[in-house]
């Protein structure tokens, strides 16, 4: 096994605009295969100019449905990201953790927010 596997998002997607969920799936497939093997991965965003939450949800967010937070934290790291892209990825990761932690609880939280919104609105 390699000490560290380097993956280039630009190379996998073949485009500097990483915006489509379907392109994110291509990155996910590689990460999924590597993490299943217990392989450490560095994911480089060099030459990527534009990211969306849809792309990152597919590429990285869905990892939280298959692997533990600990495993992801220990095996995956990213590099060559601009600050605002990192902030977007962080939001995607936090949402994914919530989403997969307990889907029923997630729905419940959503319902409670809605009820409290309705109260605030006087509904």
């Amino acid at each position, binding site marked *: 096994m390699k000490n560290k596997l380097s993956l280039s998002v630009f190379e996998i997607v073949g*485009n500097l*605009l990483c*915006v*489509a*969920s*379907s*392109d994110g799936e291509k990155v996910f497939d590689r990460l999924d295969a590597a993490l299943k093997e217990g392989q450490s991965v560095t994911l480089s965003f060099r030459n990527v*100019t*534009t*990211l*969306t*939450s*849809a*792309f990152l*949800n*597919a590429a990285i*967010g*869905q990892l*939280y*449905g298959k692997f533990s*937070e600990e495993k*992801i*934290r220990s095996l*995956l*790291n*990213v*590099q060559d*990201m601009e*600050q*605002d892209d*990192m*902030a*977007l*990825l*962080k*939001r*995607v*990761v936090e*949402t*994914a953790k*919530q*989403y*997969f932690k307990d889907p029923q609880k*997630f*729905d419940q*939280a*959503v*319902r409670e*927010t*809605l009820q409290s*919104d309705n109260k605030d609105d006087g509904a």
Partner: protein
Amino acid sequence: MRFTLPAINHNQAGFQALIHLWAQGKDCFLDDIDIDMGSTTWLDADMCAAFGAILYYLSERLNTVKLTNIRHEVESILSKNGFLSNYGREKIPDRWGTTIPYQRFDVKDDRYFAGYIENRLMQRSEIPPMSAGLQKKFRESIFEMFSNAVLHSQTKMGIFSCGQFFPKRNRLDFSVVDLGIGIRRNVKENVGLDLAPEEAIKWATEGSHTTKRGQIPGGLGLKLLSEFIDLNGGRIQIVSDAGYWMLEKSRIIIARLRWSFPGTAVSVEINTADTQSYLLSSELSETDIF
């Protein structure tokens, strides 16, 4: 069927008028649909996305759609942005380069859409230079709009977009419209909440709410878009089913429309003179993410 189309502005009344056309024509089949545009004294160009989506639906039902009595100034706008090319007119050159062409995409056309945005919007010399931060945020927002339609609409009839730049007003209008199942039905089927149409839009733009189910999480697209537009000082309008939602200057307005739109329209106004850096107040480290 004959329908008289009034002026179509980029606002609630404009959407309502287009939806009225939809309500009148939706049951027509193998019919002639004449849209009299003699009273259409103005048509905001980005509203071509919603107008075109409705006409596409009517054509899908094998109706013959004709646009008649188009006033010269409106015909000029709709010819420059390529809208009238769908209805038998020639496209005319856009001398000032302020139109972002009307275009229909399939849900699998994400690369094609990306090319359209880069070539017809971001890389155009006529669009005044925006700050690097604004340009990046703007580009991301446009792609969030398209992704949102791809991921949630379940449309088989496509996604429609169109825009217009107003140099003197430092404003850029852009709309993305789908003929999908709409937000209210999405929330009902996937989350089990039976909300009024306008409440369903409000729900979808708040907190960590998502109608996504399955292995790929979601629920950020419309929020990111709204946050950016609010910071930018622009305006965002969403129409879905009979719901209308608008955010401007941190104020939300919701309303119930008289008829239902057969999908979802997301329309933004961007303040192109915005000079904010969009830099984050605190630095994030690569080790802080997971």
